[in-house]
């Protein structure tokens, strides 16, 4: 007996461990209202590309690199040079790589084998029964999950307050669809299943004959078959853990999927027995890269090295001499790659203008309530918890707040009238003809999206002077903006004014939690114009001149128009400065639109770029961050005066003013990680759109207000739509992992990496490349992993491995 109990406990531990491992292998997917980019390889960053490729091939049937023909084309065109291939080859595992560059080139000409996932019981049952069980399971789980996760689309919501597995059991014991489709007794099977999710998992595993090493891999496979539903549940877990709690929704989903497997195994176990045994062995086998996967990874790295050579040439060009004296205008923008185009245009419009790059939430971790709203919006990077509460409008706006709420509630009552049974008939007969006018209005794009015009944000509850001064000081130091202030300093957040776009959040500011950035920008302006804060700053060594005015602004990345929130801080003395700033911003907007028009379809000559924001049929209002491939943290002088083509995140950073390298640590652990999530989301949505992309915008069907399904229903789809990385004829995003270039002492960077294992893994396993810029801004050193650096000039950097191979 005792021995049995010990075995049971051991088994339970193994199950918990495998469940946990599988859950952490799934990337989270945020709801579309706060849609932020997520690294789809989040659970794989402990491995390199080839190893991750081997795992994802097994559990998801995808490749993690481009087809070989893509690389072959670049080799043939000369974009990837022999030196790139040689260098990438030298760094690959010796026992699996081609013997030399000609062999690698030859391999590039052969198509890689098609990836295939290990089958599930449902896959095997489909083969013997002729019924498409995997599709039916996806459809059924989708039908239930859409209701369970619904945030308010259905008037008759699914029952609340139960865990995912309990809610599903209540649903599935009533649902007759599986039995109509041919799985008789399914509802009874569900009713007999254990009431607890983990017990259900344990029973299913026992009946399927799975144990040990097979578990984690098989669970991972199960969760992948749930697509975006598992990712959304993973998001719930992420949020719960960020707040110090936990969440069982994802465990519940795993149990649901396993109950299906168990039912199909019960029905078809005899017919699939032998094959299932082989498959089980497949799940238990260790994950290991094949020669082909290693070749793919080498080619990918070679493509990245080719891009890095170009970048190095660009950065090696001599820097323009920065204008001396007080700038006419300072304008801070988000590090977002879209800012690079605009900043360059603005600097070109007037050499007296100085621009800065900083994370678009301006260092303010804000939970904000909009005007007349009870809903708290997290306007900060999703890696952080909010530490400041704000709301729009002060006590003077109370009457307007009440009126706005009544109007919104009447509109909501009207909306329910529109959708309810019986009343929807009255609605249609009474108001249908009004929609003729709406069709004309929207068809002709007569309604502009416009920038948000809530009253200025304020702290709620208020912060004392010390706290406010502390926040202001931290932000200014992190921006490396502590002296030489202009008369007018614009703090420009960014957003995208678009209509009728479920993925609008993906176009907004990622650092502001997938929302537009004007709230944080305006809040910082409020803070820095505060007289008490100014005097506090002076005592802490930051002298802001009396005549400096800070103003929040919003850069609309779709139209390249900049809205300045001048009414927040009326200052007649700055009228002329403001007028000049507006003129320069207009000129810069025009130039930026003209440059962007070259990449956008149907936008020849720059006309029609702005009208995309009003077009309800537009699936490519802008390219957002497509094409991003570099992150540069250095003084602006290192990048000014040359075109980075809207592909680089630019973070102002001057290590000479960073005592103790606190800012360096912040940059490497926050903006760099956020940028890696963005870059790898684009990467994943490009190389594996079927799993890491959200599919075809033409078929998108918004579900529950949280996500999209493609077509009728089934799996939730997270990631970027295909239209966001492809213009119909070619890819607009080249899937290259980000090159992070930082002008700072190598030893300081190594120290940061040594302290942060998660960040170090990103660089060691090459999900990011790290370069140290020298004192002239040239890419001098490449981080080689293991806290080692190699000079960039060196031809072959992984000499020791090459010798072992040779």
């Amino acid at each position: 007996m005792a021995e049995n109990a010990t075995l049971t406990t051991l088994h339970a531990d193994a199950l918990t461990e495998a469940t946990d491992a599988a859950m952490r292998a799934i990337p989270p997917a945020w709801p579309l209202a706060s849609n932020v980019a997520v690294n789809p390889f989040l659970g794989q960053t402990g491995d390199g590309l080839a190893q991750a490729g081997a795992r994802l091939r097994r559990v998801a049937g995808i490749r993690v690199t481009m087809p070989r023909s893509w690389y072959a084309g670049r080799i043939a065109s000369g974009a990837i040079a022999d030196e790139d291939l040689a260098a990438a080859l030298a760094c690959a595992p010796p026992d699996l790589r081609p013997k030399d560059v000609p062999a690698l080139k030859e391999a590039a000409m052969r198509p890689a084998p098609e990836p295939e996932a290990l089958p599930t019981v449902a896959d095997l049952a489909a083969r013997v029964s002729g019924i498409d069980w995997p599709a039916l399971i996806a459809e059924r789980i989708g039908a239930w999950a859409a209701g369970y996760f619904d945030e308010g689309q259905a008037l008759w919501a699914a029952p609340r307050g139960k865990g995912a597995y309990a809610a599903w059991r209540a649903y599935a014991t009533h649902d007759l669809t599986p039995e109509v489709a041919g799985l008789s007794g399914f509802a009874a099977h569900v009713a007999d299943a254990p009431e607890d999710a983990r017990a259900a998992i344990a029973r299913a595993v026992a009946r399927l004959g799975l144990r040990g090493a097979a578990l984690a891999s098989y669970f991972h496979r199960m969760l992948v078959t749930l697509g975006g539903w598992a990712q959304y549940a993973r998001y719930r877990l992420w949020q719960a853990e960020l707040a110090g709690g936990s969440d069982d929704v994802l465990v519940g989903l795993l149990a649901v999927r396993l109950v299906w497997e168990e039912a199909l195994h019960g029905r078809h176990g005899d017919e699939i027995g032998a094959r299932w045994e082989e498959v089980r062995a497949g799940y238990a086998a260790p994950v290991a890269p094949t020669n082909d996967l290693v070749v793919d990874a080498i080619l990918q790295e070679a493509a990245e090295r080719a891009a890095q050579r170009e970048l190095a040439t660009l950065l090696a060009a001599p820097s323009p001499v920065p204008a001396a004296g007080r700038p006419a205008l300072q304008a801070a923008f988000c590090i977002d790659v879209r800012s690079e185009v605009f900043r360059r245009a603005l600097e070109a419009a007037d050499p007296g203008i100085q621009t800065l790059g900083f994370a678009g939430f301006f260092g303010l971790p804000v939970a904000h309530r909009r005007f007349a709203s009870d809903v708290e919006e997290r306007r900060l990077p999703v890696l952080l918890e909010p530490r400041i509460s704000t709301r729009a409008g002060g006590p003077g706006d109370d009457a307007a707040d009440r009126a706005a709420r009544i109007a919104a509630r009447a509109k909501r009552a009207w909306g329910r009238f529109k959708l309810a049974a019986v009343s929807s008939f009255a609605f249609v007969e009474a108001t249908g003809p009004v929609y003729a006018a709406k069709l004309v209005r929207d068809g002709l794009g007569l309604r502009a999206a416009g920038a948000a015009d809530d009253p200025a944000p304020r702290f709620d509850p208020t912060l004392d002077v010390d706290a406010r001064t502390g926040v202001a000081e931290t932000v200014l130091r992190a921006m490396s903006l502590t002296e030489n202030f202009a008369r007018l300093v614009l703090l420009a957040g960014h957003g995208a004014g678009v209509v009728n776009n479920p993925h609008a959040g993906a176009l907004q500011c990622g650092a502001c939690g997938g929302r537009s950035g004007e709230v944080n920008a305006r809040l910082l302006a409020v803070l820095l114009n505060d007289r008490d804060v100014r005097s506090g700053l002076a005592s802490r060594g930051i002298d802001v001149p009396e005549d400096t005015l800070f103003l929040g602004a919003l850069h609309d990345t779709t139209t390249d128009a900049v809205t300045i929130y001048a009414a927040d801080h009326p200052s007649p003395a700055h009228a002329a400065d403001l007028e000049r700033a507006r003129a320069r911003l207009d000129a810069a907007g025009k130039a930026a639109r003209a440059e962007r028009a070259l990449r956008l379809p149907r936008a020849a000559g720059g006309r029609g770029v702005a009208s995309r924001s009003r077009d309800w049929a537009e699936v490519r209002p802008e390219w957002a961050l497509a094409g991003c491939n570099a992150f540069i943290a250095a003084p602006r002088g290192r990048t000014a005066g040359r075109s980075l083509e809207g592909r680089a995140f630019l973070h102002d950073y001057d290590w000479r003013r960073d005592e103790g390298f606190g800012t360096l640590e912040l940059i490497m652990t926050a903006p760099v990680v956020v940028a890696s999530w963005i870059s790898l989301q684009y990467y994943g949505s490009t190389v594996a759109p079927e799993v890491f992309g959200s599919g075809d915008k033409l078929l998108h069907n918004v579900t529950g207000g949280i996500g999209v399904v493609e077509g009728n229903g089934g799996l939730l789809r997270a990631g970027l739509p295909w239209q966001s990385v492809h213009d119909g004829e070619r890819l607009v995003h080249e899937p290259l992992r980000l090159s992070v270039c930082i002008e700072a002492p190598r030893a300081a960077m190594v120290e940061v990496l040594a302290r942060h294992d998660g960040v170090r893994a990103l660089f060691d396993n090459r999900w990011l490349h790290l370069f140290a810029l020298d004192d002239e801004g040239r890419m001098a050193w490449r981080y080689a992993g293991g806290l080692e650096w190699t000079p960039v000039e060196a031809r072959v950097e992984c000499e020791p491995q090459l010798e072992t191979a040779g």
Partner: protein
Amino acid sequence: MIHLLPLIAPAALAAASVVAFLSPGPRPRFAVRSAEIMALLALAASVLSVVVLADRGAGTGPTVGFGDIGLAARVDAVSVTMLSLVSFVGWVVLRYAATYLDGETRQGAFTGWLCATLASVLLLVSAGTLVQFVAAWIATSLCLHRLLLFHPDRIAAQRAARKKFVTARIGDVALVAAAILLAVGFGTGDLAEILEAARAGAVPAAAPWAAGLLAVAALLKSAQFPTHGWLTEVMETPTPVSALLHAGVINAGGFLLIRFADVMLLAPGVLAALVGIGGFTALFGGLVMLTQPTVKTSLAWSTVAQMGFMILQCGLALFPLALLHIVAHSLYKAHAFLASGGAVEGVAAIRRPGPVAVPGGGAIARAFVLALAIYGAVGAAFGFESKSPQAVALGAILIFGVAYLLAQGLADAAPRPLTRRTALLSVAAATAYFALQTGAERLTAGTLPATPAPGPLEWALIVLAVITFGFVAAAQSAFPLWAHHPAAAGLRVHLSNGLYANALFDRVLGGWSVRRPS
């Protein structure tokens, strides 16, 4: 000769279709531009037809073809209304698709089929002959089939299209049989002549059979229970197709009943069946819609319900109201589909102003009394005495819906200004409804038959309809009080799955069978 004018509309879009098929590939700039221009030309021809109707009166243009076998445009209140509606929605959809599909590898072909479908629908609604009607009816369905399979590799698209195909072919058989019975029975293929003879009482024995077959065709076309399954599954194709389908094509069934109203009146039993099936589908679809968390699917169920309501109106012989319903619903639904990308923002906006005030039993009772008072007042202003009992009953059903709006404002927790606003909205809705209804009756007087005085069967149906709709409306108003009761959980599951009618259809057609590579 001037009565040939409506044929310009389908001809323009047919021409646009040919142009588009000449460049089937991606970014066919010329084709999409000419499609929009041709749609505007069709719209102009439709509007001019209205002018012709006002100026010259109703009539049928000369037949283009051989004797009775040919095309002839009908100009009357029904056809010019439908022409204007379809060409307007067609223009909006084509303009939308031109941008929406930019970059698709088969955008030209898509535009071609879209134009061809529109041309067929325009040909249908302007039909003056049986031959034109039947040919356009079948052509619409076949062209639409190509649009539903725009992504031919999508298994779910194949599944939906196959259901649609089977349903449509059965409907085609019914329609062809009905057309033959009518042509033989009345001795002519001219629609106006058939309708005139039917109204005059010169009725062949086969007429009720023809009416029955027409009803079958109409029910299958308008996705009535239990053959609704395909309609709720055709989101497998780009959004503009859904908009066109739900705003243009799906109306063909209702249009058929309205067009042949005089024939339908010859078969009271058939009309009674329409009341039963339409009424059930309306309530069924409306309840299922409440449970749908996915925006386009919810809209599709809404269409099922709305089409049911329209069929109910036809069954009650309220043809002008059915026509009004088609127009109003089409405009609303076209917009709703094309703007469905706003659902993320829409759902987010619901929660911002705070919790919903839930009306209690007393508030609901007050709301119903108040709604009936509004009905009485507004109805008296428009004149009850000119209305048929059927129309009065229908007005009552709709006012039950208005009661739901009132109840939300009368909830105890609702602030006063909100109560005022919802009351104002209710009065506005009731007034707009009566105004539109009166307008529809006036405009179609003479074209569509008057509603006959109800017999015992009709009275029974009227009472049944008012009671069931009243019950559902009351249940809807009291919704938050019972919907989350555990006893309702099972009902919710069954309803959310559409009572499995579609699952059975899938089973019969082998919808979930594994596709063998062909």
